[in-house]
């Protein structure tokens, strides 16, 4: 069974705003019955203030789909439609205290239903802009379609390339066989052959490994440098990382933005640690800053 947060369970067992709004003036229907998730969102929008007065959902789907729909209606009632459009799927997931990576698409469906409903209110036609494939990398929730597109667009040739461009495969590495299969398929379509030993097409920004023991100041500078290089990919997901303290070979960090409360934060921290160790050539432990208070208590004791 999935490790659902208490918040997900709360919204699943006692959904809010279930059913269609009686005199709705905005309707969004999204999802895919073949995938087993579909949602109809109905809104009553005040024409003068453009404030969402009522929202109701009807969902065919799993526990997290129903919870995402329920929490979405709670979040947007009282918002203007312009503000509601700023709600991201990470916001929905965060409000639910996190979703398992396989279930993040439920929050995406919520955001899309909202966009579709608002488009409907404005008399526009909403166009779906993404296609979802089978989940390949469970650490960073990257699906096959995303990887294929990146392989095509950036002429990627190796698993390392794919990891550099999408993060897929950068965590536990269990999906490398699947990534190789995608590379084989796409390269075959291009008339090329997959060669696992090919040189990476695009080297990630090279950070020279530091030799020999470092002073604490050197170490902190180096850690900052590595975090800076990783920041763009975190920002792309609506998250960020902040270095709080370095004690010996332990770096204390704060995961902020979308990373905060995301169930994948632990994986991200593991990924950061891996990168730090590669660049610095020494053992570095990355720990959430929240653990610092425990350390202080140990020292006092």
């Amino acid at each position: 069974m999935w490790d659902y947060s208490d918040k997900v369970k709360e919204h699943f067992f006692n959904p809010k705003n279930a059913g269609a709004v009686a005199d709705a003036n905005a309707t969004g229907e999204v999802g895919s019955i073949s995938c087993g998730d579909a949602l109809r969102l109905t809104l009553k929008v005040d024409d003068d203030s453009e404030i969402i007065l009522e929202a109701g959902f009807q969902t065919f789907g799993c526990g997290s789909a129903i919870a995402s729909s329920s929490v979405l209606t709670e979040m947007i009632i009282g918002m203007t439609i312009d503000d509601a459009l700023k709600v991201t799927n990470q916001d929905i997931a965060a409000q639910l205290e996190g979703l398992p990576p396989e279930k993040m698409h439920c929050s995406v469906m919520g955001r899309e239903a909202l966009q579709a409903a608002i488009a409907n209110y404005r008399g526009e036609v909403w166009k779906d802009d993404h296609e979802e494939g089978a989940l390949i990398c469970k650490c960073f929730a990257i699906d096959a379609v995303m990887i294929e597109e990146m392989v095509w667009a950036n002429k990627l040739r190796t698993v390392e390339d794919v990891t550099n461009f999408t993060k897929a495969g950068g965590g536990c590495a269990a999906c490398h066989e699947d990534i190789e299969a995608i590379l084989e398929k796409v390269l075959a379509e291009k008339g090329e052959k997959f060669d696992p030993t090919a040189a990476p097409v695009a080297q990630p920004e090279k950070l020279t490994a530091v030799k020999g023991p470092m002073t604490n100041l050197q170490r902190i500078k180096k850690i900052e440098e590595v975090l800076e290089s990783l920041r763009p990919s975190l920002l792309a997901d609506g998250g960020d990382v902040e270095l709080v303290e370095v004690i010996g070979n332990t770096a204390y960090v704060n995961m902020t933005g979308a990373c905060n409360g995301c169930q994948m934060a632990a994986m991200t921290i593991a990924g950061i640690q891996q990168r730090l160790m590669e660049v610095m050539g020494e053992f570095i432990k990355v720990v959430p800053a929240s653990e610092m208070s425990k350390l202080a208590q140990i020292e006092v004791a």
Partner: protein
Amino acid sequence: MADIYLDNNATTKVDHEVVDVMIPYFLEQYGNPSSIHKFADGVARGLKNARQQVQALIGCEHDSEIIFTSCGTESNSTALLSAIKAQPNKKEIITTTVEHPAILSLCEHLEKEGYTIHRLPVDKAGRLNIESYKKLLSDQVAIVSIMWANNETGTIFPVAEMAELAHAAGVMFHTDAVQAVGKIPMMLQDTKIDMLSLSGHKLHAPKGIGVLYLRRGTRYRPLLRGGHQERGRRAGTENSASIVGLGKACELALNYIEYENTTVKEMRDRLEKGITESIPHCFVTGDLYNRLPNTTDIAFEYIEGESILMLLNKAGIAASSGSACTSGSLEPSHVMRAMDIPYTAAHGTIRFSFSRYNTMAEVDAVLEVMPSIVKTLRKLSPYWDGDGPVANPEQAFAPTYA
């Protein structure tokens, strides 16, 4: 009432008698069966006894035809890979679209390596077409692998008949029987089945122990080499405690085989009848007249399986579903798709699978809560309106693919 376990096709509770016979092999007779001292002198006897207990349950001619493995999946992989290694010139495999992933994923992998995989389709009731099977048999086929009973619907395939046909065509025949062994009587020595896989944890033995039955004289290549264990056919120190446990479990299964096909079947039938009579828009999937006695798979239309399971779990009832969401995949169960069950029903399938530990009182308890669970979820469904589905559900709600 205590929690109710109706997910016995997924795995079973280990029988207390099984645990009892295993314990001495952890604490006293823990020696390596190959060693010559008193910590091991009873182990070989224990293993031999277990081999005979398995032999009795599946009705094979010799106890040396039993090879202990680590699980059903290992047995399946060993069987298929052995057949293709022993017959390198044969490049075709016949199987079905509804096999367990233990067979299907392996076949997909072999397909990439150049093998031709023939996947027999099933009809809407989950049955195979024997005529199209006959046409595929040829001297190019390395092995036929057909499950004895389907894990989701319980549908039984005519493996004895299919093995005869394969044998007549000179083709090896394997059956994945992990769901069938212990639930229906079998007498392998009267069949032409060359290999059979079974798994301990499906019949009240522990997880991590399985068997590959290998008919004497069948050409064979081991998967694991490296020792004399299992007569060199499966190297690796014997899992003696689990082997002894599996032996005991087989003995018990044989004793209960009539109970399974009478009392357990009555419980299943009562649940199935009760649900289909009290809940509108639901139906039983698979071949109703040719099924395992313990399994029923019911499709509840217009709602999704994981939601049903979560509400069942809250009511203390354990079952499983063929919906995409329970597995994190994008498609509902391949078995439901193969039977052409519409998406609006395939995602709402719930499998209830019984064992001899279940009771009629438990059946009544499930019947008590099931209608309100379905009602609760249908209230949330865009395909449902009041007391029935919306008119033309597929047209009334046609979401943008997202």
